[in-house]
């Protein structure tokens, strides 16, 4: 009974909304909004065939490569910059400035410097996603609890061991906060860079449908991006739950 009730809460509003959408589009409705049947058909024909390998896969691959590079670079550089005071002081005004540049504005420049190819799009994604991860890592590493780092020193933790057992765990809540911001930014940059200049990709396909006024097909692309966003966020929560489980537990017991 209890599970039934939570299931009801889970699907209740979505069903109501879809029903309202269906009812509203039955009598012709708006030219810009397709009815659910059209949308499902368009989604099947556009994305569950050649579209998936031609447009969706390259986009997703670029996004994942960009995110992976940002995480590796951000955490690596962040630990280096965060653990040495003078390096941090040397670079922090510069990093604050670079982070403040709205990353979408870099797209035309990179187009000019690199040209229309995968490298340009991955660079755009990295240039946007790097800053939240890098700055959060620096902050996390620089604000490690003194008692913890002293204890580490007493136990003779140095080099790799110090990274593995002290620095990374202590900074990981901050690092994950940075990665979560980066996921959203990465998706935005993937789409905008493809809309601005590309020959394939989800963003390119959507803009193409818009230019041909293929309304249901355009909406199907929007739905695909939505599903991609949801999938990324679910995946992130699973990974975060695994890696940061100890931290959540610690916070809960501290609140009791």
């Amino acid at each position: 009974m209890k599970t039934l009730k939570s299931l009801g809460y889970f699907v209740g509003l979505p069903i109501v909304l879809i029903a309202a959408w269906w009812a509203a589009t039955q009598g012709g409705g708006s030219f810009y909004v397709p009815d659910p049947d059209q949308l499902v058909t368009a989604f099947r024909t556009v994305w569950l065939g050649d579209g998936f390998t031609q447009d969706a896969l390259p986009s997703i691959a670029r996004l994942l490569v960009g995110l992976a590079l940002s995480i590796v670079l951000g955490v690596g550089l962040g630990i280096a910059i965060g653990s040495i005071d003078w390096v941090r002081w040397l670079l922090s005004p510069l990093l604050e400035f670079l982070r403040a540049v709205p990353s979408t504005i870099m797209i035309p420049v990179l187009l000019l410097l690199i040209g229309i190819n995968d490298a340009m799009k991955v660079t755009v994604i990295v240039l946007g996603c790097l800053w939240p991860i890098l700055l959060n890592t620096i902050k996390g590493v620089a604000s490690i609890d003194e008692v913890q780092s002293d204890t580490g020193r007493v136990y003779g933790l140095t080099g790799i061991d110090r990274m593995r057992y002290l620095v990374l765990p202590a900074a990981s809540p901050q690092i994950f906060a940075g990665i979560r911001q980066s996921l959203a930014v990465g998706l935005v940059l993937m789409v905008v860079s493809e809309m601005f200049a590309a020959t394939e990709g989800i963003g390119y396909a959507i803009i193409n449908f818009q230019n041909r006024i293929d309304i249901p097909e355009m909406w199907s692309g929007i739905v695909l991006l939505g599903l991609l966003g949801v999938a990324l966020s679910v995946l992130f929560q699973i990974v975060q739950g695994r890696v940061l489980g100890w931290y959540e537990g610690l916070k809960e017991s501290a609140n009791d």
Partner: protein
Amino acid sequence: MSVAQRELEKPVAVPPQRDSSRTPSAVAPYKPLLLGVAGSLGFLLIWQVFSAIGPVGSHYLPPPTVVFAEFVENLSDPDFWTSVGYTLRAWLIGLVVSSVAAIVVGVIIGSSTFLRRATHSTIEFLRPIPAVALIPLAALLYGPALSAELLIVVYACFWIVLVQVLYGVADVDKVATDTALTLQMNFWQRVRYLLFPTLLPFLMTGIRLAATVALILSVGVELIIGTPGLGQDVALAQINDDAPAMFALIVTSGVLGMLVNWLMGTIERKVLFWHASVRGGVKS
């Protein structure tokens, strides 16, 4: 970046009883500043040299001297200020509209357990949809107009602020709620003295995050749909193969971004002056 961390980073905020040999308080206070200036100048120098002898060439990567000359020249150009004005207008209207809407909706949903449970799945599904996916729709509906920009900015910022408001409403202390009820506070008193102080720190975090996103998206929409503003100027400069103009506009956007960050940080500290995170007591 929370206010607490920013405050703790200041050398002054370190309590005197700590071991002073390793804490920043042992260092002369001007040292971080001096090193920061040195680092920025060093970056400009490397850029200058790289532009002269690097593989890219000074046509595509103009040296900072040229870029900053262009930047200064822009400052006396009324068209430039019109573009800045357009971008900031979309940013501000989008931010205000989405925040107000998110506060109203968030407080209504947050105060009822039924509504909170019933809307949870829908919010969690709609929130991660990237707002830029709606750019083609905005282009079809409005063309290159302010409304197109606002549709995207408001959609993105609404969810960011809404989720923070929901967290804030859920965080109201049980004992405080019971106390307020015992004191027979009416609805508006409860909003003013119970809900508002709990909600405010969460709300400010949401608005600060949304402010950054709003700027990225206004520029992005200008770039693609061609709404007037900094983004469109950069796209035009790219078509005209005018690299110095592009870089000068990017420097401008960086300055704008820093102003936005500084403004939001200042507002947050002013509004939350009573809160522990600002007074430098505990970590938020």
